[in-house]
């Protein structure tokens, strides 16, 4: 037994020591850069929100607790999008869930009354180039513009130019298309419900 352990250590000590030091190196780099990477993400979120909802600035309005797609609790920051004159024109929040290859992070914007989706954009994803990453393309994203903020449904064939709850999937990328719809459905409905409960938005038109 002791002989075996000795043999094991003799063979693999370099691997163990190197793993430790490499791990340390990565941890140090991550520690040094994580703040900057986070900052870049915030900037991108603001930029995408502004692009989706006419040059306006998002302001933090509420922090909600929702169930993520994996069933765990997750906190979501909902931003109120206001124009320079101080008028609220919509809401923006981050939504994420599993995609085909990696986690997909989206920016979703809705109108003032949470009635229609103003649009979404991809904050971060690692979908297959040429297939899954077409979720970033106008053809697919356009379909969400003006869609009711209700349960969206993915269909294989249909009219992509209509703004309704039917989203036409991308050929060759059904999993990625479905992931986006699932992510939006999951967060949108929960956030809408909680926003109504909190009185941040009202049901009457």
């Amino acid at each position, binding site marked *: 037994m002791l002989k075996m352990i000795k043999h094991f250590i003799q063979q693999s000590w*370099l*691997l163990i020591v190197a*793993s430790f030091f490499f791990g340390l190196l*990565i941890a140090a780099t991550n520690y040094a*850069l994580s703040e900057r*990477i986070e900052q*870049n993400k915030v900037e991108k979120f603001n930029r995408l929100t502004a692009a989706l909802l006419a040059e306006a600035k998002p302001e933090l309005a509420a922090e909600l607790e929702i169930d993520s797609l994996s069933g765990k609790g997750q906190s979501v920051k909902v931003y109120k999008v206001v124009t320079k004159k101080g008028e609220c024109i919509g809401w923006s929040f981050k939504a994420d869930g599993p995609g085909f290859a990696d986690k997909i992070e989206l920016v979703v914007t809705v109108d003032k009354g949470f009635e229609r989706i103003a649009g979404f954009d991809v904050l971060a994803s690692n979908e297959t180039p040429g297939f899954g990453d077409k979720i970033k393309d106008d053809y697919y994203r356009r379909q969400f513009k003006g869609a009711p903020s209700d349960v969206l449904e993915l269909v294989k064939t249909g009219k992509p130019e209509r703004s309704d709850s039917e989203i036409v999937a991308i050929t060759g990328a059904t999993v990625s298309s479905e992931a986006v719809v699932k992510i939006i459905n999951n967060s949108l409905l929960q956030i809408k419900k909680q926003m109504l409960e909190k009185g941040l938005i009202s049901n009457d038109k």
Partner: protein
Amino acid sequence: MINKGDTKAGLYKDTLIAGLWRENPVFRLLLGMCPTLAVTAAVKPALTMGLSVIFVLVCSNIVVSLMRNLLKPHLRILMFTLTIATFVTIADLFLKAFVPRMSETLGPYVPLIIVNCIIICRAETCASKNTLGVSIIDALGMGVGFTLTLCVLAGVRELLSTGKIFEVQIMPSVFVPWAAMGMPVGAFLTLGLLLGLVNMITSRKT
């Protein structure tokens, strides 16, 4: 593989030239085809990819060369991959922090440097058998050779698919851009033609 020069300087020079031309990783060894085809639609991402590969290649060659006498033969590939993965992760973090948009354009191809054949090949054939100096020179030669090749390929493709290079209009206004050159088919066509051209030049020399 490497012609032993008479002097140390001769050896270094030989090693450097090998990576740039005689053993150019893309044109002569046909290694690292995945990034070569995937990120050469424009010069900027190709250059970023090339510089990342140089960084990873130099760092991994240094580490592998330093521990070459400690390596157990059956665990060596594992050690190479571990070393390469570490430096790729660091390069990926740096790109995300300082050039976020470029990092997005390159997407999964940055983490994929881990399995880039050029780096494993250099660790196996050069760094694990040679001194630190030779390993560094070899990494620089191979890395710069790879970067230049990517840039040439990307230059041809960007010029033909958009008429611009680095967002500067080069082609006259009558030029009709070939959209196909920016797509995967353009990558295969350009690579094939350039490989043929290089073969033609080298066969004439000998």
